[in-house]
């Protein structure tokens, strides 16, 4: 189960970060070797991302929080995109908007994705995120952001840690609310 309250520091990215940016197609041959694949996360689009994320997640008590602009994860359906983001030490993703396949893939991987006005968050800001309430406190700036709600079925999948543990438990999709 993911931490439903988590603290960490923001690593900011821009708009329209595609899944090709997150993990380029030239590394398709590494998709069955996820630790090797993950070394190439955002290699062209944000070359410093991997080392910053690793350093943050190795630090005491915190996680890296990926903070993007609009239309995060557009393009290919490759679920390897949220997989390598998670493996790089990111604990949650914030964006103004996210492409639908990427959004669903991230939740299926147990990675919280919250949609809010990320312009208000600065690079390196310390954030406290309450996934259940959809509230983000920017400790650095002192502001609080409220995120849109996801459908209950997605919250349930996220709460159980992703679609694999969800399916192991339920053996099917359960619609509630």
């Amino acid at each position, binding site marked *: 189960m993911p931490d439903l309250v988590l603290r960490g520091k923001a690593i900011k990215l821009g708009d329209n970060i595609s899944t090709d*940016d997150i993990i*380029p*197609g*030239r590394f398709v041959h590494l998709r069955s070797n996820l630790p090797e694949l993950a070394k190439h996360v955002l290699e062209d689009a944000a070359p410093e991302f991997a080392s910053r994320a690793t350093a943050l997640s190795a630090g005491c008590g915190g996680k890296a929080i990926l903070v993007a602009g609009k*239309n995060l994860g557009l393009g290919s359906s490759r*679920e390897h995109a949220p997989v390598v983001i998670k493996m790089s030490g990111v604990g949650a993703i914030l964006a103004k908007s996210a492409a639908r*396949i990427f959004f669903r893939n991230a939740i299926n991987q147990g990675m919280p994705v919250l949609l809010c006005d990320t312009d208000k968050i600065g690079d390196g800001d310390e954030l406290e995120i309450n996934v259940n309430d959809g509230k983000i406190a920017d400790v650095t700036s002192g502001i609080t952001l409220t995120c849109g709600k996801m459908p209950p*079925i997605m919250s349930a999948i996220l709460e159980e840690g992703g679609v694999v543990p969800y399916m192991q438990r339920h053996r099917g*999709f359960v619609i509630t609310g």
Partner: protein
Amino acid sequence: MGKTLAEKILSLKSHGEAKAGDVVISDVDLAFVQDATGPLTVRQFREIGFKALAKPQQTVIFLDHAAPSPSQQLSNDHILLRRFAGQTGCRIYDVGEGICHQLVAESFANPGDVIVGADSHTVTAGALGAFATGMGSSDVAVAFALGKTWFRVPESLLIEIDGTFPPGVYAKDLVLHLIGQIGADGANYRALEFGGDAVARMTMSQRLTVANMGVEAGAKVGLFPSDRITRDFLREHGRVGKYRPLSADAGANYEQVIAVNLNQLEPMVSLPHAVDNVRPVAQVKGVKIQQAFIGTCTNGRTEDLAVAAEILKGKKRHAGTRLLVAPASKQVLIQAMEKGYIQSLIGAGAIILPPGCAACLGLHQGVLGDGEVCLSTANRNFRGRMGNPEAMIYLASPATAAASAIRGEITDPREMM
């Protein structure tokens, strides 16, 4: 209140009343993966503890992205997928058969079907009136086992297409124009539904091109109503019995209606590094290209090769421009040989690649060098897409690609016709 096409199909397949915004559990008529997403599907399927497929004959593996494989790792992924097919009894289309989306159109998709594929361009089958959408590997693993998935019923945008295509202007120009207008997230989470007088005159090949690129505006599906063209296509492919007429109800609720008049369209080009960075060809004429690539699930069909062959017949590619052609399927390749298109293309200096994704996604068969420019008929021009972040990709129709290959620079195809 009338239903949109999306609401109609999801009502049918969820055995209830589905309206935009609802979350439903829907039957899945076809679930598929390709070789770049399939290995993760197999691993997730096994990790969950699933043993059997819900519908083996409606579960398909396509080996098209690395076709044939350029590396030992990808060859091993192919072995994994072939073994999974052997163990579970699902269908498999091995390397050389063609691109998953083309094969789904040729052999599987029917009006009213729900299709999920671990590939974003699964939306292509919307041309046949199927609610077809791309998903991740895990979601498709679940669909393999349950024969069901969940959907949030999308709101729909109606694209009303009127007029006729002027000479030199094609379905690719239409969809590039549309994406340029609404933007790369202009249809995010929504269904694109195509209507208007012109739809009845659009061939299945044109519809497939338009539906294919719906996802470049973020769309969940790109749906055409089914009609005489759909029925004829199904008859040609031996399954006319699967035809059913389907269209949105009068009075259906659309979030937005966008009108496109084909009479006013020109050849369009999408510039690096974003698909919605669209300009008329006149504004980019003269950009030197080192490679022209004709093929993919967007524009690798017989009609596309016919247009290219017509322009290239008896001419030669520019000495500084490589011309790559990849038919979308074996059936397309055979048809193009029978019609003499392949001979014309080879005569003009084209390299014919095996049916499959070829150079589109940057893992083999035409990876670009530093600073090189490719004019491609594919659907994506993201930085690094064709294997090199230092290269530039422009997207256009097969006619524009063929004309540009002759001159070695981006060219208005109407100057060559």
